[in-house]
């Protein structure tokens, strides 16, 4: 019901709001004094509220970093929990300013929906989880199995593709939210449950006995997850894009929350440009020159954020893998600040 209301509210905005100017998201956010950030309805490691309503996660820290750049205060974010089905409509209609909701960057979403993906904060791929007692070693052995999947995701499409191209059959059971999907798998309605591998690790923690479930080795798709903004506001897109790049560059240059004040005295010209001691990169973004200092000070560099939320410092214990920096065997690569 809540979702229907969200969709209807979004449509009403489209219908009655005056044709909004293309630019100006940054000004709106500044004026409002609060960033509206779309996140998931609860995915450990990416965006999840605790019992006091405090959100944590990799995506949440993305939102906080943007807020830190604008307000020098990472708490000035209102998190809007969205189902996968409603996320893009909410962004299109201006209910939220930016979407950090483990959303896969695809061509259609980047071209047809009036949206722009500005980066990849997590390289992922789709996998399957099954019960150990089924004795399944590969996804190809899932012929005839019931598979639970969340609606309106690339996962739903990849699942169809994978089984079709391998000429095996399955019985898909589709739910609107992640929670319902996992519950259906947990109760035995489905033999397997499929989503991005990171999501499988996260969801496995929710089960009563996580050890009884095994994640199959097949990764059947590329799932580059990243932040999304409305198309047409280049200034805003650049701000969100460079917030992510600043976190990567900070990690690459060894600038962390703990040593950022000390690094202000650094002689390294790259560090000087990053922290706003040289150049006026911040002003060109429409914010202050210490923009990246604020990110690292309040939120941390990419490595810190990763370890804290999904890596070794978290219950998920996901290895850096594809998400290591480019010079450490991964794919995370940021253009230089100069």
């Amino acid at each position, binding site marked *: 019901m809540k979702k229907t209301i969200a969709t209807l509210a979004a449509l009403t905005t489209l219908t009655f709001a005056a044709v909004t100017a293309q630019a100006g998201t940054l000004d709106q956010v500044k004026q409002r004094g609060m960033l509206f950030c779309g996140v998931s309805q609860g995915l450990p490691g990416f965006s999840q509220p605790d019992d006091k309503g405090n959100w944590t996660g990799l995506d949440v820290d993305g939102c906080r970093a943007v807020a830190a750049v604008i307000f020098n205060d990472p708490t000035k974010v209102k998190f809007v929990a969205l189902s996968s089905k409603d996320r893009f409509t909410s962004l299109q209609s201006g209910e939220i300013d930016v979407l950090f909701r483990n959303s896969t960057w695809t061509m259609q979403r980047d071209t047809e929906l009036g949206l722009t993906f500005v980066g990849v904060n997590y390289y992922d791929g789709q996998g399957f989880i099954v019960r150990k007692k*089924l004795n399944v070693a590969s996804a190809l052995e899932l012929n005839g199995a019931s598979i639970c999947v969340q609606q309106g995701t690339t996962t739903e499409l990849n699942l169809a593709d994978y089984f079709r191209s391998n000429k095996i059959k399955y019985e898909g059971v589709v739910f609107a939210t992640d929670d319902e999907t996992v519950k259906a798998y947990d109760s035995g309605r489905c033999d397997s449950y499929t989503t991005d591998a990171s999501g499988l690790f996260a969801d496995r923690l929710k089960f009563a006995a996580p050890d009884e479930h095994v994640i199959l080795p097949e990764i059947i798709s590329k799932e580059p997850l990243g932040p999304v903004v409305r198309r047409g506001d280049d200034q805003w897109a650049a701000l969100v894009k460079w917030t992510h790049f600043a976190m990567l560059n900070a990690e690459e240059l060894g600038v962390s929350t703990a040593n950022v004040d000390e690094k202000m005295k650094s002689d390294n010209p790259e560090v000087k440009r990053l922290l706003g001691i040289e150049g006026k990169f911040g002003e060109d973004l429409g914010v202050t020159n210490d923009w990246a200092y604020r990110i690292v000070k309040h939120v941390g560099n990419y490595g810190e954020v990763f370890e804290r939320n999904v890596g070794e410092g978290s219950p998920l214990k996901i290895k850096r893998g594809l998400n290591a920096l480019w010079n450490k065997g991964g794919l995370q690569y940021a253009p230089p600040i100069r």
Partner: protein
Amino acid sequence: MHSAERPQTENSGHNAHVPLWNNPVYRGWGFQAVLILLTLYLAYSAFLNTVANMRAHGIPTDLGFWPTAAGFDITQSPIPYSAVNSYGRAFLVGLLNTLIVGAVGIVLTTLLGFTVGVARLSKNWIVAQFAAIYIEAFRNTPLLLQLLFLYNAVLKSLPGPRQSIILPGGAFLNNRGLILPNPVIHDGAAYIGFALVAGVAAAFVYLRWAAVRKAQTGQDSPVIRVAVGLIVLLPLLVYFAAGMPVSLEFPVLKGFNFAGGYQLYPEFVALTGGLVLYTAAFIAEIVRAGIQAVSKGQSEAAGALGLNRAQTLKLVIIPQAMRVIIPPLTSQYLNLVKNSTLAIFIGYPELAQVFMGTVLNQTGAAVQCVAITMMVYLTISLTTSVLMNIYNSRKALVER
């Protein structure tokens, strides 16, 4: 006072000295026209504004996605459908699933509702109390909770496929649903179909004849026995005569689930079952109200004429009760169809789930998808309404 005013009003209509805009009739029409124009303009500008907003945001404004490949699967489909079919076909699958739930639900809820409604008035204290408890329990809790309870607590507590409950007649019950033997049709099965059609036609003719005979001579005919004989026995005889051309394919456990057989999915059972149980509670109260609305004098008069209890019910009470029952019954039918959109929560692929869920999300065409879905429900509801109104006008009291 009244008579004093009348000539004045009539005068003003024909009086050439009063200008047109002071004529109350023309002025009334004028205001109505202005109001209509304003409303139309508001709707039109809202439409233009929406399209302009969508264009400005780069959101598709047409139905260009309709014939392109959908790319997602729908498991429970009454027609062949796969990921290579178009969004249009996915829409059709959703629509058919909605209609199936609506049709099955309306038939079952009518049967259950009438039974419970009559039971509520039973002289048997236990039966009446049971009916009352059922009605109050289902009428006073939210439908969504009932659906979730039915789906999560009842159906999913069933065992897995490998520990299925074995039902008599080769059927199995497990958390993948109810798996029934599937009839397989061989050559010559068509004769059975012909026999069934012939049986129904013959029964209909016999009913007509019996009614005419009753009107002319007052004699009763064994209507039910003859009708059952024609509709059931005739096809059965042909079935054996044709050498039993229909056999049953029994489900067999294979891998993860049963192969062969006909599978009723838990999502369908939970949705239909939930809607039937909920709506029947309301229908039961409508039926009770309808029967109690017929005054006691009617049944006493029928008794005085020498009609027995069954005849009293059939000829006196029910025809009058139906007049009271039908209009609110129509509302309940409409509610049932509209409430089927709650399938979103339990994963049954009906129209709202498929079209306003997956299709809307994959295509980003939110306005089009929501508008089309609303039009479809409007059409279904109006059609149901029209049919029920026709039925109502036939049942209405004919006053002479």
